[in-house]
Structures are given as structure tokens and as C-alpha cells.
């Protein structure tokens, strides 16, 4: 049956903000789905609160609601748009949970809306652990022995039955949130206690331990005719015990015989049928006992998942696109294979290469967090690489990580003849952390045997042997008499970079590259074609290999190479991919061939449909140069765009230009002008602009002198960082000593920047375009939080709320002066701070910023596209009336322009200390948010309330608010607290805060902080634990150790009580509370706002 004729409109639910466990892979899948549905002639209605997504571009859906993904809001959209159906399987767990909530609330029935792709019963059979277990057993397969528990007592009894250790898994959470391994009763009380809270059904499952077993995933698809195919098998290199999102994984599975693989496939097919996934994709996880081959089904996701995005990129089979087609009536055999065009989609991709995925972590941003990898996912991004063998794929993936020391190295190997060293190496191998793979490699290189290492970590001996092979090749490289063709060929066939070879031979990297090129040892590029070469591929989706024959086709049109942003990390995420994708679209429309280079499988940019050609390659100088070389051989190349993918490609611009590659748009010289402290200071001086006093120190003594000179508090940070990495506000000499000792290294090569910190300043963020003649200001954003909170973690509003025309004028002319002074060509982001009516320039970034998508959506102007066009020669003047508005710019928005608020989403709940407490949720100059949402409405309070709701902070409409504010903010707290009381809230306050409020005539209930209390007193922690507090306002002092409020904040975070830690946000939230109390939200699509 082709397209269903009874559907004319479909509501697609997106996945909301980027959080750990749910990242931009759902933008990739959702965007594909929306495009497919529209191509089929359906009206597509979309809800997604995340503005940094391609799917929320107004031309992707017919009606785009950037609104919180909340059942009430969705009901309003349904009421307004009256869709025939809802597609909930492409927006992750968020969309699936929203669909269940709509069903439970009777909304689907009320409006006669059908769920397509999955029904509620199927979702529940797949996600309810007990139902799922029953199904697995009915299919004749096994699941781990387990007990369902609803209380701690049930859990304790269950664990006795199963024997410790036991795995604790809450139902209906994603990314393994709240799950963990309990080795004893204390562990169990802690993990199960939290898990019962995280699960929307207050249910956890205890399971027999299958720790150390081999772990696999299958990605399956089913159509309405009951055809089922397996798209991909994924094998986890890390055995069971590490969440699959945190594991190094490989596709296809490499250590199974056909018998075991087919048994897994049979189980998968039986399970998808029994669960009743009507149409679409699902993912099933298995554990295999390495000693006996016993297969146990771990779990399934009855929807498109993170793994399906990985599987799509790994195989070339676009699961989300196909799932959308299946949902509206097609069967697999009716859909052509996207890549071969002539064969159907009803087949199983076969690979002639190896794919490796490595997760990327940011534990450095949460120093208190326990870095042990468990069944709760903690990684914030991932890289994927393709190679013709495992060694190549692994080494390419490692250098794609873009982290210092991410690649294998062989210097200073441990001396394992020392028994203590040997023990400690084995200990680090047995402990699952992000670094374990290095411990394994170094341990093997130092002489541990495959068997010893296997015993310590249970990574399959085959993978260990491959790592031994890499070590042997390293030895071969370093001991060879000369760097000849054979040495290089062997090295390259196992994925060694020129840099690694150089280091092994104590040579300069450039010399290695020179020798290699002279010997004509260069990579060829193979194609991902779903069929191992059996049929011709029509999609140039390439990866490098040091093989014989290249498949890069010649071309005639001039090409532009766009460098992506690499793995998602805090500080560089989906926003940069958004800009790269937009650049690709604009440059393609301008008549060029577009070539994308990136290594992040979660993104839209690595969809082979995005650019004309896709190179799935690490973003290192060597790898990018080889792509460039291959493309120059294929046809004319106009140049490379480095300014849209964040710091990753920006950092390559200089070397690329030096190597003779034309860099388009902003030139490396301009980048230096903006990034080099001294040069940038000169730019500001010439323009008569002020910056906070600052200095650059290369020794500790120097840092101290500078700090004394410019006066405390100072902001200290390593130079050239993104996302405020390692940045801290330091109030006195003691803190400076401490920072230097613990938080950073300092040397000539790694200078530390010391800036005067502006207290109580309003921070302003500007995104602008410059073409050498004209300036176009995209938007002037006013931060809600004061300067000192990283701009990525601060809420902000556009148009600005409180800045006067005079300030705006100064911002405009300062922006123009900096653009001119640095001579950027394209996007420029500047951060200002205004205090005591003085405008300070904090920093300038000569590239697309994190806020570009937000500004673009808020003002309906495509900044990244315009920047890309400037890079290929167009001017602001000639884009006016086309890409840019006829007149005016984003700094001159009319009073009736909608107010857009960006709110950050923070991951504190994921990270626990070794003792099991959540880490502190205080904001600071180091960015820690994983994503953002946008709230848009006619006025600020409503937009801000939507922003909070989108970030899952549901403001209470009545109840009790706890307030504890540091002394310096006590004066400013009075008014908002009074408003709370006027609205009927009860206020609970700590002693000092209560005293101040009392003098203002505001009645409060006084509570003790936990350390002030006598044994019989109830403390604030008791109140929080009892669930009697509906919101926590805890504004700590900047100066003091912030530990006093930590327990309170940790408890609020752990109990999911809305927590506000700055006074500015408190004041803003109070204005929003009134809105939330008085009315329900009205929804409006971007298309309507723009009309």
C-alpha cells in the first residue's frame, strides 16, 4: 500500500533541548522525517523548543511551534491545528513520553488524533520492564533475572533474592538516567531511592548482574506488511556495565559467528513483532556470556534512538527517513534504497569497512563528579570514524576526539616489572573510565598479556589483539632503520597519523608528511554504499583508506569545502552544526558544489543529503589536507570555510592558509586580531573602546602581579578556550594560589589570562555580519544573569529589555568599529558588559557563535546563510531584500516584535560524586549547559516562563518557596519575595534572610540550614526530602566558599524542585509566575510570527 490517503496533516514532536542521552541525533532524525512527510504532500506541524535545530527552520515544516514540549501546550497546538495524526517516534524519549501523557490525559481521544509509528500499547510493552520481560520470554528468549520494585523495601528484598551486585534501572527514562550498579545495601538504597524518583511511574527494576558480558545492539525496522529487516549490528567494545552511549562501539559486530548472530536476529524479529512496533525502527540490546554464548535480551527502545542515528551514518541506510515513510503507509519494498536508487529498502545493509564510535566526556567541567562509567550515560557527544579495518577506524576516531592525548602514545610506558606499578596498571584497566582504552593500550605495550588484560577488563581478546597489533606497528615504525615506503604504508594501513609517526621517530610532523607525499603514499577515498560494492552508489559519502583505488568522481562546478564542528561537547554543540548546514544550503543555492567534512554522527551536517559530497573524516590538519588534495584532483575548489563550525575549524584556518589552501571569509589574520589579547587590545584602543583591565601571565608570579595591579576580583582562564573552560572568578590572593595550583597549567605555551571582573554588570551579546564595507547587526541580546555567569549558561532576551537607545547606539558603533578593526568577513560575535554606564568589551569571536540560530529564529533572518554567502563573495548590500531585510537590522526591532528568551539547560542531575550526591548546580564563568530552549511570546514574562518550562523548570502556581540569599543581594530580594507573598505563596527562609524579610514586614517560616540545626530541628533538607518545598531560591555569595548552600542545591536538584541561583533570574521568574498563574499559554507558530 502506498501513501495513506486518509492523512492530510501530521504533528511531529521533536526532542527539545540537548541533554545528555538525547542530543542532536534527534534533529537529524526529525528533520529527515519532516522533509519526507512534506514531500509526500502532507501538512507538517512541528513542536520543538530547541531553536538550534534545523528541524525548527521555518521552511522545514508548514507550522513550526518553538514551544515547550508539555502536554498542555501540545493540546493547544492540536486544538489550533487539528492534525490527523501524531508521529512520536522520532523525537526521542521526550516525544514518546509526551505522546503517552497526551494519551493518558485523553487528549488524543478528545481530538480524534491517531498516533502513527507506534501505539501506546506498543510503547508500554517496549518500555515497561515487566511487560517487556514477559514478551521476551514468550518469544522463547531469555532476559536477565529480575524483580520489579516500587519501594525501597521491595528493592532490598529483591536484591537478597538475586544476590549482589544488582543493576538498578528506573522505567521510562532515557540515557539510563538514574540507573546504576549496587554492590551492597547502601548502594541500593541510594540508587534505587533516586531511581524511584526519576521514573515517571515510580518504578525500578533490579536485575541479576551480567557485568562483563559482551554487549550488542541490533537496529531493526518493521513495516505494516510485517516485513522486518536488521539495519545494523553494533558491538560494544566495553562489556556490559557501561552504558552503550558511553561505550566505545563498533559496527558491524566483529566477534560473533553467524550462528550467534542469526540467533540474535531471530530474537530481535520475534520481539519487535510481539511488542507490536507497528511501523518504523527499534533498537534491541543484548548481552552474550563470553564463556557459554548464552544470550540475554537487555532492553529495547520502540523508537528511533541515538543508536539508530549512529546506525544510519554507519551503514548509509537513513532509518528516520524510512521510518517516516513507513508511518504514512509505505512498505519497505515500495521505497527505493536511497544510495543505490535501483534496489529496494527492504534489505539488510552489508559493510565492507569498520565503524568505530567513541563517546566524548566533559568530566573536567564537573570536578566533583565521579568519572566512573556506569549504566547512567554521562557522555555529551561522540565521534564516529570509518576505516577499512578496525585499527584504522579506532585510531581515526581517537584523533577525531580533538582532545589532547586522545590518540595512543608510547612514551613513558609504565614499568610493569615493578609489582606495584603492575597492580596499579591492572587496576586502571579494570576500572571503566573514559581513559581505560589508553590504560589497556599502554598496559599491553608495557608487556601485559592479552589474557591478563582480558581478565581485568573483559574486553574481547580480539579487540585486545588489535590494540596489540597497533602497538607492534608502533614498534615497527620507531625501530625501522629509515622511514621508507613500507614503513609508511604499514603505519597508514593501521591508522597512524603523521603526527604519531613523527612522535615515534622523534621527527617533525611536516617532515613525515613531506616524505610520505614524496613517496606518493596518500589515502584514497572509498564510498559508503550499503551493499559492499554490489551495486553502484549514487551518493558521494566517502571515507579515507590507504588502499589502491579511489572513488572520488571528477566534477566540473567549483566546490566549497565546509569544515564541521566535530564532536558535541559542552560549549560547542548543535548550534555550530546548524550554521554549517545553513552554509551548505546557501552555498549550494549560490551555484557551488558543497563538500562537508565532519566526524560527528549525530548531526544533520553528516547526513549525506546535506552537502553534495560528505567526507566522514577527523577534523585534523592532515585529514582535512588529504580531502582538499583529493578534491582539487577532482575539480576546481574555491576554498574552505572555517568560521562556522566553532573553534574546531577556526583553529585550522592558519595552517590551511599557510599550506596554500584558500580560506574563505574571515582570514586567519583577522582571527588572530580578535583572539590575540595584545592585538585585540590595540584594535580596541584605536576605536576608543574600553575593555576590563587585563593581562596575560606565563608564570604564577606574573599572574599575581597582574591581579594586584588591576585589582580583585579577577577572572582567570587559560587562553584560547571555548565554553569558558577552566575559567574562574577569583576574589583574593588565596583563591588565585589555589586556582593556579589545581585548575590550570601555566607556561610560555599555555598562558593564563587575567581580567578585571566586573561585578553587577549587565552582559550584552551581539551577533553581527561584516563584509568589509557594511555591518549588519543580527541581534543585541541582553543577558538575564549578571556578567560572570558564562553566556552559554545565562538566559538572555532578544530584543533587549532594559537597554536604552543610547546604550544600543554605543553597542552598534562599537560593533562596527571592532568589525572594521579586525577586518572579519562574515559573522562576528562580541560580548559586552555595561556597568556604571561604561560599556566594556569582554571579548570578540571572529566566527559564528552559539547564539546564531537563536538570533536567526528570533528575528527571522538567516545569519549563517548570509555569512556563507559573504564568504563566497556576496555583499550585505546586495543581499538586502533577499537574504537580509530590505532595511534595518536586528538591533532595531519594533516594540511589537515578539520577545524571544533563550534559556540554558543544565546537566547537574546526571553527575554524582563518589558518595552519590549530585554535583553542585551553581552557575559560574565556566559553561556547563548542554543545550538550550527558546520561549517566544508577546511579552517577556510569558516568554521567560515558556523558556523555563521548555527547560523542564515548571514554576509552581502556589505552595511554599524556600529563600536563602547572600548578604550583598538581600536588598534586591525584598521586592520579588514580597510579590511571592502577595501571590499567596508561603515563604520559608534561613535565619539571616528571614530576619531581613521580617523587618520589611514579610512573614516567613524560619528554618535552619542543616549544619545549624539541633538534633530535633527540621532543617531545609528535611523539608525538601518531604516534598513540601515547591521552589528553591538559593543565591550564594560570590566571594565565599559556596559550600554552605551546596547541600540545599543538591537536594533540590535531586528532588527535581525548581532551583534558582541568581537574583536576576529570581526577579525574572517572579514576573513570570504571575503570568503562569493567570492564564494558559497561547501558542503561535514561527510562520505566524513572521507573517
Amino acid at each position, binding site marked *: 500500500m502506498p501513501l495513506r490517503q486518509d492523512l492530510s496533516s501530521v504533528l511531529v514532536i521533536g526532542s527539545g533541548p540537548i541533554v545528555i542521552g538525547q542530543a542532536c541525533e534527534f534533529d537529524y532524525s526529525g528533520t529527515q522525517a519532516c522533509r519526507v512527510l512534506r514531500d509526500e504532500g502532507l501538512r507538517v506541524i512541528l513542536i520543538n523548543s530547541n531553536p538550534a535545530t534545523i528541524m525548527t527552520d521555518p521552511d522545514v515544516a508548514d507550522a513550526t511551534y518553538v514551544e515547550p514540549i508539555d502536554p498542555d501546550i501540545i493540546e493547544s497546538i492540536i486544538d489550533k491545528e487539528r492534525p490527523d495524526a501524531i508521529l512520536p517516534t522520532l523525537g526521542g524519549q521526550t516525544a514518546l513520553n509526551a505522546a503517552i501523557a497526551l494519551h493518558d490525559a485523553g487528549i488524543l481521544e478528545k481530538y480524534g488524533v491517531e498516533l502513527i509509528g507506534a501505539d501506546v500499547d506498543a510503547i508500554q510493552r517496549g518500555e515497561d520492564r515487566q511487560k517487556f520481560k514477559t514478551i521476551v520470554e514468550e518469544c522463547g528468549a531469555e532476559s536477565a533475572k529480575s524483580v520489579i520494585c516500587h519501594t525501597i523495601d521491595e528493592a532490598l528484598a529483591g536484591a537478597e533474592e538475586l544476590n549482589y551486585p544488582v543493576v538498578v534501572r528506573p522505567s521510562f527514562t532515557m540515557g539510563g538516567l538514574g540507573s546504576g550498579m549496587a554492590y551492597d545495601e547502601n548502594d541500593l538504597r541510594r540508587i534505587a531511592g533516586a531511581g524511584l524518583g526519576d521514573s515517571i511511574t515510580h518504578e525500578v527494576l533490579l536485575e541479576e548482574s551480567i557485568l562483563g558480558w559482551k554487549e550488542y545492539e541490533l537496529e531493526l525496522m518493521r513495516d505494516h506488511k510485517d516485513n522486518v529487516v536488521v539495519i545494523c549490528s553494533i558491538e560494544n567494545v566495553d562489556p556490559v556495565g557501561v552504558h552503550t552511549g558511553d561505550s566505545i562501539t563498533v559496527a558491524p559486530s566483529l566477534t560473533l559467528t553467524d550462528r550467534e548472530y542469526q540467533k540474535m536476529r*531471530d530474537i530481535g524479529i520475534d520481539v519487535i513483532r510481539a511488542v507490536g512496533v507497528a511501523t518504523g525502527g527499534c533498537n534491541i540490546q543484548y548481552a552474550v556470556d563470553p564463556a557459554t554464548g548464552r544470550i540475554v535480551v537487555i532492553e529495547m527502545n520502540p523508537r528511533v534512538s541515538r543508536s539508530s542515528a549512529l546506525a544510519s551514518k554507519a551503514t548509509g541506510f537513513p532509518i528516520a527517513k524510512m521510518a517516516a515513510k513507513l508511518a504514512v503507509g509505505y512498505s519497505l519494498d515500495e521505497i527505493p534504497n536511497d544510495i543505490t536508487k535501483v534496489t529496494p529498502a527492504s534489505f539488510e545493509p552489508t559493510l565492507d569497512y569498520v565503524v568505530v564510535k567513541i563517546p566524548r566526556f566533559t568530566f573536567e567541567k564537573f570536578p566533583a563528579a565521579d568519572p566512573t562509567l556506569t549504566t547512567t550515560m554521562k557522555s555529551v557527544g561522540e565521534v564516529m570514524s570509518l576505516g577499512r579495518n578496525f585499527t584504522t577506524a579506532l585510531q581515526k576516531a581517537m584523533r577525531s576526539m580533538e582532545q589532547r592525548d586522545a590518540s595512543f602514545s608510547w612514551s613513558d610506558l609504565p614499568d610493569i616489572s615493578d609489582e606495584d606499578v603492575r597492580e596499579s596498571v591492572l587496576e586502571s584497566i579494570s576500572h571503566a573510565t573514559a581513559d581505560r582504552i589508553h590504560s589497556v593500550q599502554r598496559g599491553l605495550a608495557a608487556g601485559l598479556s592479552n589474557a591478563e588484560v582480558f581478565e581485568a577488563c573483559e574486553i574481547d581478546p580480539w579487540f585486545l589483539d588489535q590494540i596489540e597489533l597497533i602497538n607492534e606497528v608502533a614498534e615497527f615504525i620507531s625501530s625501522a632503520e629509515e622511514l621508507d615506503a613500507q614503513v609508511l604504508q604499514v603505519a597508514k594501513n593501521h591508522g597512524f597519523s603523521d603526527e604519531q609517526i613523527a612522535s615515534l621517530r622523534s621527527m617533525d610532523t611536516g617532515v613525515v608528511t613531506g616524505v610520505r607525499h614524496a613517496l606518493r603514499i596518500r589515502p584514497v577515498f572509498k564510498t559508503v554504499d550499503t551493499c559492499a560494492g554490489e551495486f553502484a552508489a549514487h551518493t558521494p559519502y566517502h571515507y579515507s583508506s590507504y*588502499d589502491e583505488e579511489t572513488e572520488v568522481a571528477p566534477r566540473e562546478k567549483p566546490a566549497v569545502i565546509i569544515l564541521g564542528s566535530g564532536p558535541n561537547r559542552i560549549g560547542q554543540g548543535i548550534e555550530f552544526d546548524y550554521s554549517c548546514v545553513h552554509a551548505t544550503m546557501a552555498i549550494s543555492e549560490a551555484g557551488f558544489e558543497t563538500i562537508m567534512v565532519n566526524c560527528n554522527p549525530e548531526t544533520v551536517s553528516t547526513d549525506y543529503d546535506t552537502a553534495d559530497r560528505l567526507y566522514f573524516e577527523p577534523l585534523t590538519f592532515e585529514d582535512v589536507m588529504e580531502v582538499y588534495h583529493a578534491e582539487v584532483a577532482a575539480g576546481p575548489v574555491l576554498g574552505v570555510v572555517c568560521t562556522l563550525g566553532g573553534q574546531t575549524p577556526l583553529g585550522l584556518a592558519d595552517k590551511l592558509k599557510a599550506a596554500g589552501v584558500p580560506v574563505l571569509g574571515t582570514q586567519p589574520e583577522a582571527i588572530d586580531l580578535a583572539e590575540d589579547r595584545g592585538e585585540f587590545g590595540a584594535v580596541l584602543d584605536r576605536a576608543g573602546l574600553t575593555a576590563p583591565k587585563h593581562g596575560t601571565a606565563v608564570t604564577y608570579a606574573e599572574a599575581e602581579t597582574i591581579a594586584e595591579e588591576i585589582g580583585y576580583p579577577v577572572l582567570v582562564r587559560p587562553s584560547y578556550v571555548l565554553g569558558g573552560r577552566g575559567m574562574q572568578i577569583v576574589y583574593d590572593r588565596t583563591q588565585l594560589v589555589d586556582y593556579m595550583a589545581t585548575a590550570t597549567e601555566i607556561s610560555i605555551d599555555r598562558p593564563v589570562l587575567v581580567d578585571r571582573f566586573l561585578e553587577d554588570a549587565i552582559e550584552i551579546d551581539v551577533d553581527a555580519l561584516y563584509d568589509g564595507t557594511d555591518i549588519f547587526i543580527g541581534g543585541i541580546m541582553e543577558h538575564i544573569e549578571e556578567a560572570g555567569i558564562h553566556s552559554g549558561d545565562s538566559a538572555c532576551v532578544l530584543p533587549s529589555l532594559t537597554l536604552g537607545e543610547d546604550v544600543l547606539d554605543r553597542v552598534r558603533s562599537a560593533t562596527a568599529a571592532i568589525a572594521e578593526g579586525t577586518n572579519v568577513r562574515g559573522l562576528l560575535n562580541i560580548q559586552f558588559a555595561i556597568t556604571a554606564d561604561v560599556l566594556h568589551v569582554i571579548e570578540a569571536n571572529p566566527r559564528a557563535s552559539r547564539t546564531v540560530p537563536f538570533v536567526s529564529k528570533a528575528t527571522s533572518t538567516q545569519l549563517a546563510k548570509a555569512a556563507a554567502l559573504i564568504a563566497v563573495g556576496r555583499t550585505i548590500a546586495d543581499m538586502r531584500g533577499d537574504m537580509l531585510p530590505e532595511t534595518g537590522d536586528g538591533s532595531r526591532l519594533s516594540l511589537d516584535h515578539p520577545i524571544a528568551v533563550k534559556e540554558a539547560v543544565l546537566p547537574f542531575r546526571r553527575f554524582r560524586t563518589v558518595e552519590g550526591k549530585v554535583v553542585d548546580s551553581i552557575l559560574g564563568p565556566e559553561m556547563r549547559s548542554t543545550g538550550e530552549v527558546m520561549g517566544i511570546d508577546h511579552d517577556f514574562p510569558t516568554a521567560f516562563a515558556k523558556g523555563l518550562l521548555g527547560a523542564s523548570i515548571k514554576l509552581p502556581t502556589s505552595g511554599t518557596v524556600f529563600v536563602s540569599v547572600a548578604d550583598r543581594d538581600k536588598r534586591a530580594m525584598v521586592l520579588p519575595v514580597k510579590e511571592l507573598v502577595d501571590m499567596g505563596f508561603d515563604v520559608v527562609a534561613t535565619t539571616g534572610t528571614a530576619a531581613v524579610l521580617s523587618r520589611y514586614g514579610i512573614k516567613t517560616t524560619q528554618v535552619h540550614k542543616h549544619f545549624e540545626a539541633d538534633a530535633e530541628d527540621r532543617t531545609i533538607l528535611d523539608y525538601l526530602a518531604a516534598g513540601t518545598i515547591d521552589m528553591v531560591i538559593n543565591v550564594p555569595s560570590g566571594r565565599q566558599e559556596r559550600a554552605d548552600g551546596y547541600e540545599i542545591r543538591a537536594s533540590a536538584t535531586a528532588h527535581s524542585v525548581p532551583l534558582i541561583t541568581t537574583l536576576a533570574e529570581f526577579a525574572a521568574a517572579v514576573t513570570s509566575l504571575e503570568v503562569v498563574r493567570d492564564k494558559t499559554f497561547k501558542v503561535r507558530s514561527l510562520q505566524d510570527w513572521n507573517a
Partner: protein
Amino acid sequence: MRLSTTPAVLVLEDGRTFRGSSYGAVGETLGEAVFVTAMSGYQETLTDPSYHRQIVIQTAPHIGNTGITDDDDESGKIWVAGYVVRDASRISSNWRSIGDLSTRLEESGIVGISDVDTRALTLHLREAGAMRMGIFSGPAAEADDKELLAKVQASPRMAGAKLAEQVSITQPQLIPAVGEKKFSVAALDLGIKSMTPQRLSERGIDVHLLPATTNFAEIQALGVDGVFFSNGPGDPATADAQVDLLREVLGAKIPFFGICFGNQLLGRALGFGTYKLPFGHRGINVPVMDRTTDKVEITSQNHGFAVDAPLDGETQAPHDESFGRVAVSHVCLNDDVVEGLQCLDLPAFSVQFHPEAAAGPHDSSYLFDRFIDLMSASQVAQA
């Protein structure tokens, strides 16, 4: 590191050569070059008699990872004429593993080559079509390329090759039914894989495995409920004796089921021709539509020849009017090649792919049940 010290060279009949390292036995071998796209099941592939006289190229990136097991052989020996892989595993890792593949290849005298650009080779065969190939390693590789090419060009072609007799058993064997015996079947071994009798016997069938040279009287003497023709190597156009035998089986209205070569022979017995495919179907991911149910099954395939029958509607069997009407029951969705035949007026059907799998998915195992249904129906009709 252990670098292979024995160079090897692979020479195609059109003169293209690839250099790599010796894998398995050192020496020289000639055969038809075929690529297999399966990612698992190399042991089953190597021991599949249908690969007799063929040099198998594995497109999968790593081969040998799980070693050799006791259970996974599809016959008593390795049949491939030679073996081409990209990365050969250095160790075996599997709880069932009893040895490693390279040793087995060496002991079996199978000349192979590793470290070659198997993808380039595969694309070449896809574009240029099936052809002969040689692998030369050790002293054999030292001859100049011209000389090696001459050897390849002098080797016999697959078209016109009569090979079933070479791989068949010479004495009948009985594989008894597992559990209660329901039927007995005469299975003509034209290169049968061991999973096939297993699939039959586990359904309560006594399987009389018979040599390829068996005649109709010998089958009649067994008093079987059905006849089965297996897969096997070679050009179906050469199997006249078996085609004649099958015509007698059809004439006697004995229920018949054929797999692969057996499908081609049913095609010929009914009067259709067979032809050589450009490069064949060899993989375990091939979509086939069962036209009787309109459902797609993912099949295991290994065939270089195919039946030339009209795809749509019913056709009168061209060979003999008494055979009645025939329909193409299964079609390959990749290229519309005939993948199954069904007689509408006789109890006979066959498929071109491998429902016994090994290696491959089990989607098509229902066909063995269909055979049982056919035998049941036939008994009812006779009763």
C-alpha cells in the same frame, strides 16, 4: 611486528593484478572469481560445495575473528578454489572456537591472499562481470605477470562446467528423522550443504542422501514421499542426466522441492532455459518477494546462474504439456531475477536461494514446512 614475508599476487583474466600477502597455503590456484558480501559465516562459505572451482573474495573487512568451530562446517571439507580477504585475523576469539582459520586453510591446501583492496576488486568484477582468476604466492608468484596471466586465461571457464558429480557423495546415506518419523525424502546430493538434511530431519523426515548419478528406479525403490534436489556447483545447462531424472519424478507426481541448483534443474525440466548472471548473487542480505504472500524475506544466496522464465502470470510448462502451468513464486527485488518456481498442476516447487541459511537469516525456513504440506496433501490425495 610479524610482517608477512611471503608476497602473493592475484591475477584476473583481463590482466588486472593485485598484490598482497600469502594467506593459508603457499602455491598457486585458479578458479572463477566471485565476491561474497556476507559479514558473517566464513566457515560455512568455505565449506559450501557450491563454491567448488571458485575463488571467493570476502568483502567483509575482517575474516577469521572467531576461528573455526566444530559445528559450522557445511560439508566435510573446504571447497573453495582460493580465498581473498583484506584483513586476516591474527587470533581466534569465540567460546566455540577449536582452531584458527589460517591454519585450517593451510592444512587444507587452500591458497589465499590477504591485504588486497578487496573493494576495488569487487567493483571491478561488478563492472567487468564474472571472470577467471589466479592466486600465486611464494615461488609461484615470482614468474612474470604475463606468464601468470597466460595460466589464468588457460584455465577452464565456469560456463559449461559439469561439476555436480565431482562434489556428490558416491554411496547413499540415511539421515534419520529426529523424533517421530513423518515422511521420507530422497535428496539428490549435487553439492548439498549439511544444514539442508538437518532442516528436513528435524521436521521428522528420513533423508536418503543419494549420489548425483542416481536413477529414477533407485528412487522408486526407496518408496519415498518426496524428492529433493540440492544446491551445487557448475553450469545447470550441463546437468542433462539430473534434468531427465527430475522429469520422471514430475511425471510420477512425486512431491518435489529444489534449492538453488535444484531450482535451475526444475526450470530446465519444465522447459525453461538458464543463463549466467553478470556477477551472480552471493550474500546473506538479498531481498526476495514471496509472491504468494506478498512478503519480503531476507535470503541467503549463492548463485551465478538463473532460470529464464516469464516473471508475470502463469505459463504453460514449455517442455511437456502434461506438466501443466508454472508460476514464478519468488523474485529478487534487487534485479528481478527469478528466485523460485511453483508448479500449479504438479506437487513441485523450488527456490533459487537458501532457506537452510547457514550462513544467513532464517526468514525462509517456512519453505521446508511448505514441502511437508505438499507431501501431506499428496498423501491425502492418494488415500
